[in-house]
């Protein structure tokens, strides 16, 4: 541990601000192992049914997404236009783009097209807009622009946020308020809710449908989501999209972020209840959740844990929940402390003051030949490479837990976990994390 600059929670609390605090030092190189990921530029773009994706990229930028999409079965939706140095200098890549878009539309007859550019075009200021509008008018096919530009990571326009906005820009003018359908759209997640989520049943009983883009079979069905009465923001990455739809399409959003702590789940349901102006009957679900939490406290008491950042959850919120279950959270490996996690960092400082926080890209992690420490459980593949452990608990991006049912599902998963004996590399490669 001498080599790694671990941060104490007390030190972190003093640096908390109103905006997101990034944990990796600005002036340090980044260690980026294959276990990082979850941004979802390719994955999110591919969610739109009957729409083709065209990446305009140098060879180096599209490879990870392309290979991962082979395993993800989305490869046939994506085309790559490779740019060359001479084209970039002369601006000729935009002429090639025009040809490529024509070819794609004529060959595949898509209902829409997402053109994705990279960091290079951000710096060059390439005028994609005019080319895209020209082709859009020529073929009457909507074209939207997305960006895979990690150069804007840690900014308000980070690619993982902006791509979520891009896909909803296909929506046109929604129906008048009184004609809106009694549906809520799930926003921010890569997939639909896990069946354990009680919200599906609760809303169904109230005659309200729950929609996720991944369930849409056609472009028309996807566009019909614009007529839902509101969006349910369940993952933080959907925040830009939620604000965009609120201001441009007059479709409000309910901030109901997925969490495991009782307070977080209560808060999410409170927001939903306020919006619907109806009381939600959660007693049964809450009682099952509480029983589970109480039951496992003795089992988990004193077991050490490392929480990682490559999980479909918020690391500090999850650490809070695990502490309430009796676990001893030894480490949290994270990229940032967003606003909505400040409350959990403060809580952890009081209730788990020994917890250490490691920035996920710390270059010193690359020099650790032996595991940094030994813990009983790791949550997330990125920490599996750092700590020696007995149990690996996964919270994959292809599974969206929610509510009391989601938390119970997690508890059951921890209880039933078998000692990890597989290959770390195979686990990471099969998870297809990067896209």
């Amino acid at each position, binding site marked *: 541990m001498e080599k790694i600059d671990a941060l104490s929670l007390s030190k972190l609390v003093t640096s908390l601000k109103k905006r997101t605090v990034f944990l990796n030092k600005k002036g340090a190189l*980044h260690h980026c192992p294959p276990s990082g990921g979850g941004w979802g530029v390719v994955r999110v773009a591919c969610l739109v049914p009957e729409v083709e994706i065209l990446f305009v990229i140098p060879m*180096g930028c599209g490879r990870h997404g392309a290979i991962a999409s082979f395993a993800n079965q989305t490869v046939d939706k994506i085309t790559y236009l490779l740019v060359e140095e001479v084209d970039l200098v002369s601006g000729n890549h935009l002429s090639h783009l025009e040809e490529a878009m024509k070819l794609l539309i004529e060959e595949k007859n898509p209902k829409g097209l997402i053109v994705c550019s*990279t960091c290079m075009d951000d710096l060059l200021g390439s005028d994609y807009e005019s080319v895209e509008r020209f082709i859009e008018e020529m073929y009457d096919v909507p074209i939207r622009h997305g960006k895979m530009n990690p150069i804007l*990571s840690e900014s308000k326009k980070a690619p993982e946020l902006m791509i979520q906005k891009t896909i909803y820009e296909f929506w046109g003018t929604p129906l008048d308020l009184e004609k809106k359908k009694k549906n809520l759209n799930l926003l921010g997640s890569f997939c639909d809710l896990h069946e354990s989520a009680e919200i599906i049943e609760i809303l169904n009983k109230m005659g309200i449908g729950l929609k996720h883009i991944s369930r849409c079979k056609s472009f028309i069905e996807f566009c019909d989501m614009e007529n839902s009465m509101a969006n349910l923001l369940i993952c933080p990455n959907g925040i830009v999209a939620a604000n965009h739809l609120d201001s441009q399409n007059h479709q409000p959003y309910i901030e109901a972020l997925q969490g495991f702590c009782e307070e977080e789940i209560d808060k999410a349901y409170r927001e939903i209840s306020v919006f619907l102006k109806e009381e939600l009957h959660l007693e049964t679900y809450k009682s099952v959740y509480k029983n589970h939490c109480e039951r496992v406290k003795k089992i988990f008491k004193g077991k050490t844990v490392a929480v990682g950042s490559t999980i479909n959850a918020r690391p500090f919120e999850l650490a809070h929940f695990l502490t309430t279950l009796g676990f001893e959270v030894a480490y949290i490996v994270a990229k940032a402390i967003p606003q909505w996690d400040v409350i959990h960092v403060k809580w952890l400082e009081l209730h788990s003051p020994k917890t250490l926080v490691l920035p996920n890209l710390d270059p010193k992690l690359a020099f650790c030949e032996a595991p940094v420490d030994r813990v009983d459980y790791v949550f997330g593949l990125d920490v599996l490479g750092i700590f020696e452990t007995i149990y690996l608990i996964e919270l994959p991006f292809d599974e969206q837990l929610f509510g009391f049912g989601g938390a119970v599902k997690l508890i059951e998963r921890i209880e039933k976990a078998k000692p990890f004996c597989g290959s770390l590399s195979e686990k990471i490669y099969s998870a297809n994390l990067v896209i």
Partner: protein
Amino acid sequence: MELEDFYKNKITVLYTLMEPDNSGVKIKIHTVQFLLLIKTGEIMKGLLKKLPPFAPDYSGVNSVFYELGGITIINGADGCIGNVTGYDEPRYFEKKGHIFSTGLRNIQAIAGDENILLKKIKDLPFLTQVSCLVLMGTPTSAVIASDHKGVAKLLEEELNIPVISINTTGIDGYEMGAQKAFLALAKRFVKPSSQLGSGVNIIGATPLDYWGRRQIDSIVNGLTAHGVNVRSCWTMEGGMKAIENTLNGEINLVVSVSGIPAAKHLEKVYGMPYIIGVPVGEEDTENFANILNRKDKNVCSEKKLFKEERSERRKLEKLFIEKKDIAAPVVIAGEQIWANGFRRFLSCYIDFSQISVVSFFQMNHQEMAPQDVYVNSEDIFLKTMKKKNPATIIGDPLYRRLIFSSSNSTYVDVPHLAVSSRLYWNHNKIYVGEKIIL
């Protein structure tokens, strides 16, 4: 005619490569036809509808330096390094490499990043204990024209370790980066010697071609069995020490296009001869061994390795090929030097002129047969296949996506890591050396 002028050079070169026997007049006619195809949209250069983008040049550089005990720094946003660590470096979990991203962000790119870059690198621990530091560029740093050469010079003066800047852009293929890296090794690290020693250095092996440990062992064991002393393998065996002691050997065996510039440099500066080629099959391995043992300093091309006579062993190899349903005409799609070797292996059974090498990657003119084709787009690859109408295709499994919808050809999978990345890198095939397992 603006487009025509723009493409003129490229297409002429392309068609010269495709049909080197044609007269100038014919080339001109083809050129015009080609332009028409581009204009009508039939051929779209650089458009990948079925294949993934191939491994970029910085992956090639990393692959060369990975086992040499240095630190590799990619100057770009973190997405670029994700390609290398997650998709182009199968050794990552066997031996954690010291490879870092500079985490280039917008404001640094706009304001100029050299000072920040210097500081970030100097803050890295253990810097003075490494064999070298390699700094390379990405598309982003290429756009802002980061002065890597200047930064490398300053760092070298301050840290007193070799710092090498390699001019990669993320736009070229892996073989271009690997060439630059091998050449840098030859220029910077080979210790001069007044007299050459004995034994063979293998140059040009990186996992991005076909070179896993088993493939290298297969070559080395085959040659050793025939009395060849294999001293080192740039850069998968022997580490930096082997590079430094290159001149203790007598001849270099270049196993990929990536290794050619380094071998040429060693020949030019130190008079060290080289052979280009990969031994494939028993007879071929013996031929290589004989030449390497003869220390024939005039041999510089694998073309001299062909033998017309048929030995008993060749008959066995013929049986092996028959069993695999390999029938003429054959197209071998892959890295040129390996593909040439495999063609020699097949030529005991199939006429040489019936076997073509087709490659998306750089090809060496001198090593090309008249029927060989360099392709730079999916469309040209498809048109070439249509023209050649092969009964057998040997190549990376992902090329099937381009071919098999309208073809009855037999396909023999030979994964090429620079194409299919981790999708097939755990395969059990051995396609070089004495014992072939397909």
